[in-house]
C-alpha cells in the first residue's frame, strides 16, 4: 500500500454537519471524563489535571508554611528550647524542598497546564496522558517525602544537600536518600509537563496565532518549559550521582578517591539558578496578563518583553557560580559571574519598565485585587532584585552569603516576585476556574495583611543578616542581641500566616457562593475569556481564528472560527510552528488508567531503590508492562490514524 491509501478519509461526524446545540452535546460526550474511581484515575483533561495540581500544590504550600511558622517560633527568642537541632534541620529542609519543588514549580506549571491550551485556542494539552502521568508522579513524590518526615526520616541537609554532608559518610540512615529520590520524582514530573507544554505551544495554536500574537503568559510558560528541559537534567544527574555514591559505593564526590565535592555544587546550581527563574518567569507572565486588562490597553513593548523573557531564560544558565563565591574559586573566574549576574538585571529592568509604561498610559486604572497584588509585586520584587544585584558582587557576597541577608533576598524575590503575582493571578483567573468571582472586600483585607505581614517578617532579615546572623541555625546566643529583631520577624510571619488563612477563607466562600462571573468578567482580551466559566471539557466548540494579539478586544461583535473537525473522536488542530497555519487534524489521546499504573510502578521503583539497587531491576517489569498498556492501541478512533 502507499501513502495515497492512507490519505484522509472524511469518516466520522464533522462539526460542519451539526447545529450549535447538538455540536456542544456531541463534543461534551466525546471529551467527557468518566465518573467513578476508574474514571477519576483515568482523566486526561488538562483542566482536571491542572486543578488537581493546583489543590495539591496549595496543600504543600500549607505544609511548607507551617514548617516555616514552627521555625519562626523556635527563633523568636535566643536559646529557645522548643525545637532541637535534629528537628529544626529537618524543618528548614522540608520547608525549602516543599516550597521549591512541591509548591512553587508545580503550581506555576499547573497554572500553565490549565491556561495554555485555553489561551492558544486548543482542546487539550499535547500528550495528555503524559500530563496525567506527571501528576501522579508528583503526588507520590510529595506524599513520599512528607510521610518520611512524619516517620522521622525527613531529609535534614538543606534544600541543596551539599556533599559530603549528604554523602554516605556523614549522612547515615535514609534521610539523604529521601531527598535524592524526591528530586527524581518531582523532576520527572516537571520535565514531562514541560515537554507537553512546549509541544502544545509550538504545534497546537489556533490558526493565525503567529509568534507575535502569542499571549505573553504563554510566552513566559514556553520559555520556562525550555529552561526546565535544559536545567532539570542537571539536578537529576547530581542526585543520581549522590544516590550511586550512597548506595553502591561509587566515589564521584569523594575527594579521597579522586572525586570532588565542589562538582556537586556546580551540578546543583547549574540547575538551581535557572530554577529560581523557572519560578519567576511564569509569574512575570501573570503580571503581563493582569496589567493590560486593568490598564485597558495592549501591553507596552510586546517585543521587548518577549526578548527579555528569552534573554532571562538564556542568561540564567550563566550565573550559577554566584551561589559559590565563598567556596574559594579563582577570583577572576568569579568576577565573570558578577558581570553576568549584573547583566540579567537588564532584561528584568526592561520588564519592569514596560509594565510601568503600560500602567502609566492606559485607560483609567481599575484598582481591583489582582492589580493590588501586582503593585505589591513591584514594591517587593524590585527591592529583592536590587539586593540580588548586591549579592552578585563577589566581595560583598562574602560578607552576606549564608546569612539572613540572603534569606531576605530570596523571600523578597520568591514571595514578592512569584507568590504575589500568583495570588493576583488567583483573583484574576478564579472566575474562569469556578465560574464565580472572589470577594473583593476580603481580597483587599488579604492584600494589606499580606503586604504588611510580609515586609514586617522579611525586611528585618536584611539587617539581622548584616549583624552577622547565619542562616540554618536552630538557635543563637543571647549576647549577640538578635533577640528583639527576631521576635519582630516572627510576629510579622504570623501576620503573614493570617493573611493566608484569610485567603483560604475567601477561596472557600467564593467557590461556594461567590457572585456568578460570566465569560469575561474583566473584559480581558485573550482567548481563555472567550469560553464559558468554567470552560466546557472540550474548551472550544469551534477553534477560534486569531488575527490580533488581543483577539477579544479586536473582535467585539463575533468570533471568527474554523470548522471541520470531527466530533465523534477527540480531534485537535495541529498548526505550523511559526505562522500557526492549519496543518493537520490529529487525534488527542482518550482517558486511560495506564498512566496511573505507570506512575505507580515508576514511583515504586524509585522508592525501592532507596533500599536496594536491585529494585531498578525488579521495577523494570511493571514499568514495561504499564508503558506497553499505555501505548498499545485499543481500537478507538483516537488510536488509529
Amino acid at each position, binding site marked *: 500500500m502507499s501513502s495515497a491509501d492512507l*490519505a484522509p478519509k472524511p469518516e466520522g461526524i464533522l462539526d460542519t454537519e451539526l447545529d450549535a446545540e447538538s455540536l456542544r452535546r456531541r463534543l461534551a460526550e466525546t471529551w467527557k471524563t468518566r465518573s467513578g474511581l476508574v474514571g477519576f484515575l483515568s482523566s486526561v483533561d488538562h483542566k482536571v489535571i491542572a486543578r488537581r495540581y493546583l489543590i495539591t500544590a496549595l496543600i504543600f504550600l500549607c505544609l511548607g508554611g507551617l514548617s516555616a511558622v514552627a521555625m519562626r517560633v523556635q527563633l523568636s527568642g535566643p536559646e529557645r528550647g522548643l525545637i532541637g537541632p535534629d528537628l529544626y534541620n529537618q524543618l528548614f529542609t522540608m520547608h525549602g524542598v516543599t516550597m521549591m519543588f512541591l509548591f512553587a514549580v508545580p503550581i506555576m506549571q499547573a497554572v500553565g497546564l490549565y491556561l495554555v491550551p485555553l489561551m492558544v485556542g486548543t482542546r487539550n494539552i499535547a500528550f495528555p496522558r503524559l500530563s496525567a502521568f506527571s501528576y501522579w508522579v508528583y503526588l507520590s513524590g510529595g506524599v513520599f517525602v512528607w510521610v518520611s518526615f512524619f516517620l522521622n526520616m525527613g531529609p535534614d541537609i538543606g534544600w541543596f544537600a551539599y556533599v559530603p554532608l549528604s554523602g554516605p559518610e556523614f549522612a547515615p540512615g535514609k534521610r539523604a536518600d529521601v531527598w535524592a529520590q524526591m528530586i527524581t520524582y518531582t523532576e520527572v514530573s516537571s520535565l514531562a509537563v514541560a515537554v507537553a507544554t512546549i509541544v502544545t505551544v509550538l504545534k497546537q495554536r489556533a490558526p493565525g496565532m503567529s509568534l507575535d500574537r502569542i499571549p505573553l503568559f504563554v510566552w513566559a510558560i514556553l520559555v520556562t518549559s525550555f529552561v526546565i528541559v535544559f536545567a532539570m537534567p542537571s539536578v537529576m544527574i547530581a542526585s543520581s550521582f549522590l544516590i550511586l555514591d550512597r548506595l*553502591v559505593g*561509587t*566515589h564521584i564526590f*569523594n575527594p579521597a578517591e579522586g572525586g570532588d565535592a565542589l562538582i556537586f555544587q556546580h551540578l546543583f546550581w547549574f540547575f538551581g539558578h535557572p530554577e529560581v527563574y523557572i519560578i519567576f518567569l511564569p509569574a512575570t507572565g501573570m503580571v503581563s496578563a493582569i496589567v493590560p486588562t486593568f490598564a485597558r490597553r495592549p501591553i507596552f513593548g510586546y517585543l521587548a518583553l518577549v526578548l527579555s523573557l528569552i534573554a532571562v531564560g538564556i542568561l540564567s544558565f550563566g550565573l550559577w557560580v554566584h551561589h559559590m563565591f565563598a567556596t574559594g574559586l579563582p577570583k577572576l573566574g568569579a568576577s565573570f559571574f558578577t558581570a553576568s549576574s549584573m547583566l540579567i538585571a537588564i532584561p528584568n529592568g526592561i520588564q519592569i519598565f514596560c509594565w510601568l509604561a503600560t500602567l502609566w498610559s492606559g485607560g483609567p486604572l481599575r484598582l481591583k485585587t489582582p492589580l493590588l497584588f501586582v503593585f505589591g509585586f513591584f514594591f517587593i520584587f524590585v527591592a529583592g532584585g536590587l539586593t540580588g544585584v548586591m549579592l552578585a558582587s563577589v566581595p560583598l557576597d562574602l560578607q552576606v552569603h549564608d546569612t539572613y541577608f540572603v534569606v531576605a533576598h530570596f523571600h523578597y524575590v520568591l514571595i514578592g516576585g512569584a507568590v504575589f503575582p500568583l495570588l493576583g493571578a488567583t483573583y484574576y483567573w478564579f472566575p474562569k476556574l469556578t465560574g464565580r468571582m472572589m470577594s473583593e472586600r476580603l481580597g483587599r483585607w488579604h492584600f494589606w495583611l499580606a503586604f504588611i505581614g510580609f515586609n514586617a517578617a522579611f525586611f528585618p532579615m536584611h539587617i539581622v543578616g548584616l549583624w552577622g546572623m547565619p542562616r540554618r541555625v536552630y538557635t543563637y546566643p543571647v549576647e549577640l542581641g538578635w533577640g528583639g529583631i527576631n521576635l519582630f520577624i516572627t510576629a510579622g510571619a504570623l501576620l503573614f500566616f493570617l493573611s493566608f488563612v484569610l485567603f483560604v477563607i475567601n477561596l472557600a466562600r467564593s467557590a461556594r457562593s461567590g457572585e456568578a462571573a460570566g465569560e469575561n468578567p474583566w473584559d480581558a482580551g485573550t482567548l481563555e475569556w472567550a469560553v464559558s466559566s468554567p470552560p466546557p471539557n472540550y474548551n472550544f466548540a*469551534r477553534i477560534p481564528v486569531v488575527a490580533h494579539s488581543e483577539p477579544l478586544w479586536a473582535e467585539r461583535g463575533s468570533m471568527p472560527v474554523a470548522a471541520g473537525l470531527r466530533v465523534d473522536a477527540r480531534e485537535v488542530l*495541529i498548526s505550523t510552528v511559526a505562522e500557526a497555519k492549519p496543518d493537520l487534524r490529529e487525534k488527542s489521546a482518550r482517558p486511560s488508567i495506564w498512566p496511573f499504573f505507570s506512575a505507580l510502578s515508576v514511583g515504586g521503583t524509585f522508592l525501592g531503590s532507596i533500599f536496594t539497587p536491585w529494585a531498578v531491576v525488579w521495577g523494570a517489569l511493571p514499568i514495561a508492562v504499564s508503558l506497553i498498556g499505555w501505548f498499545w492501541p485499543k*481500537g478507538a478512533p483516537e488510536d*488509529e*490514524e
Partner: protein
Amino acid sequence: MRERTVLELSSLPTFGSGPRSPTWWGTLAFIALEGTGFVLAAATYLYLAYIAPGWPLSAAPPNHWPGTIVTILLVASLVPNHILSGYAKKCEMRPVRIGMLVMTAFGLAPLIVRGFEFPALNIYWDTNAYGSMLWVLLGLHTLHLLTDVGDTIVLAVLMFTHHGNSGRRFADVEDNIFYWYFVVLTWLPLYFLIYWLPRF
C-alpha cells in the same frame, strides 16, 4: 459570543510525519533533555579528569575491543535505519516490517556485546572516581540502548498486528528511527571518553 466560520479544516490530513507531527517535537524535546544529561555527565568526567594529577587514576586503560565492536555495529545500523526511514515515509508495510526486524537485531547485537564491555573496563565502579565515571557513562548509555530496543521490539510486534495498518503507526516508526540516530550519535563521544581519553 457569536461565531462566524472563516476557515474550513475538514480537508486537512489526519497525520503527518517529521516536524509536522507533534510527536516528532516531543521526541526532539526528550532528546534535548537526555542529551543535556549526557553532556553534563561527560562534563563531570572531564572535570574530574582535569583536576586529577593523572588519568586514569592508578588503573590500566580499558580494553577497547568490545567497545569498538559496539561502535562498528552502531554505525553500521545507521544504514538500515536510513533505508527504513524511506519506506516508513512512504508507508510501505512489507519493507517496514522487515526493517523493524532488522533494526531489532541491530539493537540486540550491541546490547549483547555491551555485556563484554563492562568487564573490559578493567576497573570496578567502587574502586575510585575514575572507575565510577566509566561505569556511570557506560551505564547511562546502556539504559538508553535498552529502552530504545524495548521500544523497537514493541513497535515491531505492533506492525505485525492489524494495528500496524495506520498512518499513525508509520509516524511512530519514524520517531523510533529518529531516536535511534540519537542513541548512536551519543555513543560516539562516549566511546572516545571511555576508551581513548585514558590512553592520552
